[in-house]
């Protein structure tokens, strides 16, 4: 096994920046705004300087600012964002980028823990800040996590059943056709994990200022933003690998991979701008009603193909 997968976090960060630019741009165009521009005409230089790397500049700005730590916060307030970033970096090792990844027999299970660990770290860090908004956001996040993990796990395990493996590299393929239920379920779970619009309940700015990250500022918030950017890439790439991958090699593999990633992120951007926000009880009820049923369907579908037919 090569050590090529070590560049995965770097790719995750760089492409994650571009993906968040794409999200912003599409969101702005749907809202009939201009958004960050790709190329700035010289006449605009004094008016608008947002451009393609704007998400990166935002993060750099955060790293240049002072960090305020609340008096009542415990040391976990500082440790948790770093742990979350660590989880995201480790998770990026396990997600194949054009087939390059840390190929481990139980890779899928480890990935589950890492994705969950990232969310838990953010929750712990937020709650220890002592802010009420963070506590309410944390409670909401845990409720979402509890209802969302089951469909996510069942949806990915449906693929594991059809391919008889737990290694992500071996179950890659164009599974959108072979198991469409699993594809829908995993896509919905990714929306919840990324806090895309109907499910951004834990950081609803009009209700609880910015939820878990209310008290974070400066470099710690910058770390959380880097984590967010990497998580966008990790989850989008996971979806592209599991459902939109066509086995290929060399330059073709990168092309297939990035077209899958692009397609998924465009879908996510559309959902993000075309929906309002659920209330927490509506969201949990909807998650129990639709993705859970679909995920059971996906498992039944997969086992039927494998064991019956």
């Amino acid at each position, binding site marked *: 096994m090569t050590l090529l997968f070590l560049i995965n976090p770097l790719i995750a960060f760089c492409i994650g920046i571009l993906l968040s630019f794409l999200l912003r741009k599409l969101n702005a165009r749907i809202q*009939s705004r201009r958004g960050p521009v790709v190329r700035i005409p010289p006449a605009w230089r004094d008016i608008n300087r947002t451009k393609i790397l704007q998400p990166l500049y935002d993060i750099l700005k955060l790293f240049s600012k002072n960090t305020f730590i609340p008096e009542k916060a415990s040391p976990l307030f500082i440790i948790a964002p770093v742990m979350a970033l660590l989880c995201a970096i480790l998770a990026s090792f396990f997600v194949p980028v054009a087939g390059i990844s840390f190929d481990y027999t139980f890779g899928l299970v480890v990935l589950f823990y890492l994705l969950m660990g990232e969310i838990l770290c953010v929750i712990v860090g937020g709650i220890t800040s002592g802010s*009420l908004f963070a506590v*309410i956001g944390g409670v909401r996040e845990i409720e979402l996590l509890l209802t969302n993990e089951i469909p996510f796990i069942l949806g990915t395990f449906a693929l594991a059943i059809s391919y008889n493996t737990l290694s992500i590299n071996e179950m890659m393929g164009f599974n959108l056709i072979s198991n469409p239920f699993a594809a829908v379920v995993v896509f919905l779970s990714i929306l919840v994990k990324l806090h895309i619009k109907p499910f951004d309940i834990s950081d*609803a700015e009009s209700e609880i200022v910015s939820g878990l990250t209310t008290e974070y500022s400066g470099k710690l918030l910058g770390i959380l933003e880097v984590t967010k950017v990497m998580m966008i890439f990790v989850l989008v790439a996971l979806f592209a690998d599991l459902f939109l991958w066509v086995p290929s090699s060399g330059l073709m593999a990168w092309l297939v991979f990035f077209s899958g990633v692009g397609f998924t992120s465009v879908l996510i951007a559309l959902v993000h701008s075309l*929906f*309002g926000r659920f209330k927490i009880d509506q969201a949990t009820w909807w998650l129990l009603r639709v993705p859970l049923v679909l995920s059971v369907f996906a498992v039944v579908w997969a086992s039927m193909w494998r064991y019956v037919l």
Partner: protein
Amino acid sequence: MSKRQAALDVTEIKADEVGTEVSKLLNQGARMMYASGVDAGVPGIRIDYYFTFDEEIPSRNLVLRTYVNRKRPIIESVTPITTQADWAEREMIEFLGVQVKNHPDPRHLWLPLNWEDMYSSTHPKGDTESERINTSPTAHPPHDNIFSKHLSVVPYGPYHPALIESNYLKMSVEDEVVRDADLKLGFNHRSVIKLMERRDYYKDLFLAERICGFCNVSHSMTFAQAVEQIADITVPKKALYTRTLLGEMERMKSHILAIGLMGDLTGFRTMLMHAIRIREEILDSLEIMSGQRISHGIITHGGIRNDVTPVHIDVIKSKLKNLKKSVPEYFDQLLANDVFTGRLHKTGVLTVDVAKKFGAVGPIARGSGIRVDIRKNSPYAAYEDVDWDVITENDRDCFARVKVRMREVLMSLHICEQCCDVIRSAPSELITPVNELPCGEGFSRTEPPRGELLYHVASNGTNTPEFVRLRVPTYPNVRVMIDLIKGSEIGDVPVIIGSVDPCFSCADRVTVVNQGKVTVSGGRR
């Protein structure tokens, strides 16, 4: 030509008869609009209770007037009889020093909660003349009925994303359910009504416009109507129709933004952006008519200031044509979104009894099926001569209130088109000059986008008003809002606030015209 609004009907009573008289009027079906005091000098502090009869069309306006001693200004509270007087009496306590006996909740609403401590704790008794505020930390925390409960308290404000304007909404929360809520105002208070007494009538018009950015036409129109009532003049036809056109444009602009903000508060920012895009056409046509986008300054005593020519009307009509296409399309998009409507259905249910008890006005009352609209109840401008109707919904929840606003926008478009046709062919007379202003009192009510606005102006023959009293629509509606928030969930609170569409600057009677240089401390250039 439309009739002038009904003048004020004043009944003088003794101070100890207030309770019985008020309950007598309430039993006859009156609604208490406001209560306010004026320091009248020798006769004592004059206290007015404003009533209206909503069932009668045109409605009768009635004032119960009483005088209390200036040295010992004590009056019996009427809040135990009707909740509609609650905030008005709290305002009297704070701004006039009237001691309202037996008021159930006599805390400060506008002044800081520890106002008394600021003066009394360290200053010696005789040093009240220096009027210097004691800024040291107070000996005991200000009395607050919410913080003493053993629940977690969630503050909204003074600055919070759900409320664009500054106010302080405190909620004690138990597991996402709001058990108790209280509101603190006064972050924007600039005592506009006092400032109005020092400026002449023409400057007051501009000051009135600055009270609210959304309903500035209504504010200046109501003030002008009150003055026209004192001067006893008739406004030309073209001015009346232009005022109607301006008022309806303002209603559209406010309602579309309120609906868009409703989307933003439920996380649907796309709809806010589209609302702002659609609104541009209205702002453009307002700019064509008055020269300014937000504060128009076109209404004056006796008419309007600049002419609206047929060329203007042509441009406005083309804009209205665009709006007739884009506005229903926008509403359809919004109503087709299940996530958005799911948040609104069955939240913040305001029953008819509660709405009447707190004296709700405007779209909030009409969303509960109460047929109250000042444009119909006491017609002003040209509303009697155009074809329109009051819009009510019977579902009583936030969705009904939003639907009332949506249908009112469409109705306003209809009214605007009629006004445009009349203005094009109306005689060119714009203004009836006010030559002399006799002593007297003028009282006027209009219907801004948010509800009922009333102005009470008294003239003493000089070039400045004797006093001005005004009550904005947000004033009773926010009182209803607090009641709706109690018992709801945290996720519902922004939706309820959005459906009530409060304008706290109005309630504070703000004016901030800061032309000074903005200094940023700690920044580097």
